[in-house]
């Protein structure tokens, strides 16, 4: 029985348990037709599990999912799509060497001729004012355009409920503005949107209602426009948020890290190399490097850390000395530490204890090895110190790194590097997937380390993070780095345009963020 006035989606006491955790504990909320509804919560709050159940990937242990007034069992994603539920995942599933049209055809449940499908795609594009060439090869598209493929794929099914999981984490501000236009048009047409994000200012400008989750439970609802990002963050973490304390006015010391015309050839067909990247970081300075993922950040990180030494020694200089050709261990001994973006399997070994993970990078500066023999007590002691000083929730130095939550492991990794007091610290995505409380602690540690006279480079896609902690900012796009600017002098819009770089599809996107701000 379908009731036209019923909620588009209602969850009644939905419960889902995994071994050892109650991922969702009697979750109930409603989404009205045409509503832009935000699902807010820290990592591990249970958002992903919840939407996977709505999309039929997982199944509730208990409780009811009601669509348009009818309780349903959603057996599979295919069944969900048949009920008018679409989903756009955070990570795209696209084949790079194939065209947009071919990619969309592959994801459809029904078989259509290429021309019929193209007609339907063009109709959807026209209806929502989206620009996308069905015959372009995916590898030539920007991330924003790739996301549009996923959105079109979902819209072709004329969904009545669209789930979007962290859709803006890879977009420039201008691309975000464009996405929001699309979502508003969708909502105006009666489609409900369930929007998952941790970017609170975006939720404020976009969403009509928000459900806040913590520890698998719904802990509150709000009208985002009536809240501040801070008040919503506090609801998410269930406590008050600490501000990053920065020394008011500070001078910088001598140049610690200098990168001089660093150029790297790309590895594969789709790799972005580095072209003439030059910058310097002074003692006490935090340099933020913004940019959309995949524009050379990984290559830059590897070249700076020394994981892949470069051919020209002078391209990377530490305290004036050329170190470009030195491998990572030698650079670390000289005081250049780095933290890569990926925690599991790169910055840490999941199957090793925290003490062993301390040995991985701190063995020389903390004297953990003598005559090739590991001094277990020293390693355990240092791991214990990191755990204590950085508030890592772990059973002790013998805990397996893989048993820690993402945020806790990130705190441990950051603590492991910061407590070695490196001369230069290069970090990528320091708070990726980390809850707000842990993020604040990590930011504070970076600011404090800089205050002690270290030079820090933070590579991040999170503009809010960079603006909060950096002294200066540069933007990387297609392997080129913009000149460094003081954070006070550069606007969010300028950064956005630099991030969009040569894609140049945002002619009308200028001042988009300001327009967004006015709406709010």
């Amino acid at each position, binding site marked *: 029985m379908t009731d036209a006035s019923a909620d588009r989606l209602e969850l009644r006491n939905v419960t889902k348990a995994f071994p050892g955790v109650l991922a969702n504990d009697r979750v109930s909320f409603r989404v009205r037709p045409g509503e832009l509804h935000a699902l807010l919560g820290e990592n591990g709050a249970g958002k992903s599990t919840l939407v996977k159940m709505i999309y039929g990937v997982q199944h509730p242990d208990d409780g009811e999912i009601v669509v348009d007034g009818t309780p349903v069992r959603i057996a599979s994603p295919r069944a969900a799509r048949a009920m008018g539920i679409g989903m756009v995942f955070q990570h795209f599933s696209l084949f790079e060497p194939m065209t947009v049209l071919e990619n969309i055809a592959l994801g459809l449940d029904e078989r259509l001729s290429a021309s019929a499908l193209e007609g339907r795609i063009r109709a959807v594009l026209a209806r929502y004012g989206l620009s996308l060439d069905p015959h372009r090869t995916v590898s030539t598209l920007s991330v924003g355009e790739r996301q549009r493929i996923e959105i079109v794929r979902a819209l072709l099914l004329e969904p009545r409920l669209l789930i979007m999981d962290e859709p803006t984490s890879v977009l420039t501000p201008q691309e975000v503005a464009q996405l929001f236009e699309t979502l508003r048009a969708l909502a105006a047409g009666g489609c409900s949107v369930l929007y998952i994000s941790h970017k609170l200012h975006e939720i404020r400008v976009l969403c009509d209602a928000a459900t806040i989750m913590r520890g698998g439970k719904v802990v509150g609802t709000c009208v985002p426009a009536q809240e501040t990002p801070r008040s919503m963050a506090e609801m998410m973490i269930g406590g008050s948020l600490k501000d990053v304390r920065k020394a008011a006015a500070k001078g910088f010391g001598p140049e610690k890290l200098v990168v001089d015309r660093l150029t790297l050839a790309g590895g594969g067909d789709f790799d972005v190399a580095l072209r003439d990247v030059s910058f310097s970081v002074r003692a006490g300075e935090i340099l933020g490097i913004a940019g959309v993922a995949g524009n050379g950040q990984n290559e830059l990180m590897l070249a700076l850390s020394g994981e892949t030494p470069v051919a020209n020694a002078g391209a990377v200089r530490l305290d004036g000395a050329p170190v470009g050709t030195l*491998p990572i261990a030698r650079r670390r001994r000289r005081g250049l530490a780095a933290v*890569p973006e990926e925690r599991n399997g790169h910055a840490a070994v999941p199957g090793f204890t925290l003490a062993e993970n301390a040995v*991985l990078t701190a063995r020389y500066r903390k004297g953990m090895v003598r005559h*090739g*023999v590991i001094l277990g007590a020293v390693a355990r002691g240092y791991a214990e110190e990191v755990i204590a000083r950085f508030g890592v929730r772990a059973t002790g130095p013998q805990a397996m790194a893989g*048993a820690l939550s993402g945020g806790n492991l990130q705190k441990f990794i950051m603590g492991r590097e910061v407590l070695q007091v490196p001369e230069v610290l290069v970090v990528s995505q320091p708070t990726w997937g980390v809850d707000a409380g842990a993020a604040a602690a990590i930011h504070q540690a970076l600011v404090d380390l800089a205050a002690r006279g270290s030079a820090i480079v933070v590579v991040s896609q999170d503009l809010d993070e960079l603006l909060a902690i950096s002294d200066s900012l540069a933007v990387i796009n297609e392997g080129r780095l913009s000149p460094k600017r003081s954070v006070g002098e550069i606007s969010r819009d300028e950064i956005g345009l630099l991030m969009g770089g040569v894609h140049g599809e945002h002619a009308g996107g200028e001042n988009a963020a300001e327009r967004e701000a006015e709406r709010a």
Partner: protein
Amino acid sequence: MLELERRKVPSRTMIWLAPVLAVLATMVVGGLVFSALGYDGFAAVRAIFIDPLITLRKWQDLGLKAAPLVMIATGLAIGFRANVWNIGAEGQYVVGGLAGTGVALATWEMTGWWILPLMCIAGALAGMAWAGIPALLRTRFNVNEILSSLMLTYVAVQLLYYMVNGPWKDPDGFNFPQTRIFTDAQMLPYLSGIGYLNVPLALVISLVVWFLMARTMLGFQIRVVGAAPMAARYGGFSQRRTIWLALLAGGGLAGLAGLFEAAGPFGQMVPAFPTGYGFTAIIVAFLGRLHPLGILAAGIILAVTYVGGEASQSSLGLPSAATGVFQSMMLFFLLAADVLVGWRLRLRRRVTE
């Protein structure tokens, strides 16, 4: 519908209990299978698994079989820990034995304390050189070491046949394809009540490798490269060096084990020298959880099946393949048990729309 669901943290107890369960399952299923084939299955299981352990005079036989298995498996496990899959220990074992034989024949009718150590060095170096070929191919040309090391085994065996049929054939041997018998200076000392010197040496090697793997940077490097290659690079460990290290360690220990066999139980080089220790050691390495001390226990278990298998051929008329069947079954059950250690089986109700 049955599905496998990854366990968050595999139980540590179960990780070590799995090999025990695999052995028990082998005994039960092996007994049933051989009963079905018309043998006295459970007598066979008792003869193969129990009798060698409770018969004191068989213990020397156990040591004889276990020592090479433990040595080779310990070396292989170093590589397996680093995700370097040296499957050709049998070939490295043969080449080690051949090199030692070469030294023995070159020092024919000489005496001196230095002859045996020289043979040991030659054996170990030859094994390392043989394993160095896959290492070179892997690090230079990215050739899969599983294939290259395995294929080199057959090259080594052919080399053995050529040597004993040609240049090294015993001039006083009535044209049999075998070398001269080694002299006392070329033989491993025999310790009465224990066996050849390689038995205590295998124990010592196992302890040394355990220390290296658990407590030193060398072992740490190998373990990191195997567990997380990206983290190893981040930690400053070269994957190329680790591949070399792993293959040389495995080849060296296999070569030395080969020399010990040649200068011990065989006392000469014969076409029957390749007995499959190099392959059985793979089972030993996994049954022992790639842990040097676990391998020690696993080596004894596999030695039991060898000794028991031989005995049951005469006492129960079991075919000689029975030993291989039991050994393979053990590996199979171990792998099956491992799946259940890491994953749980769940019965999922089929959800209908």
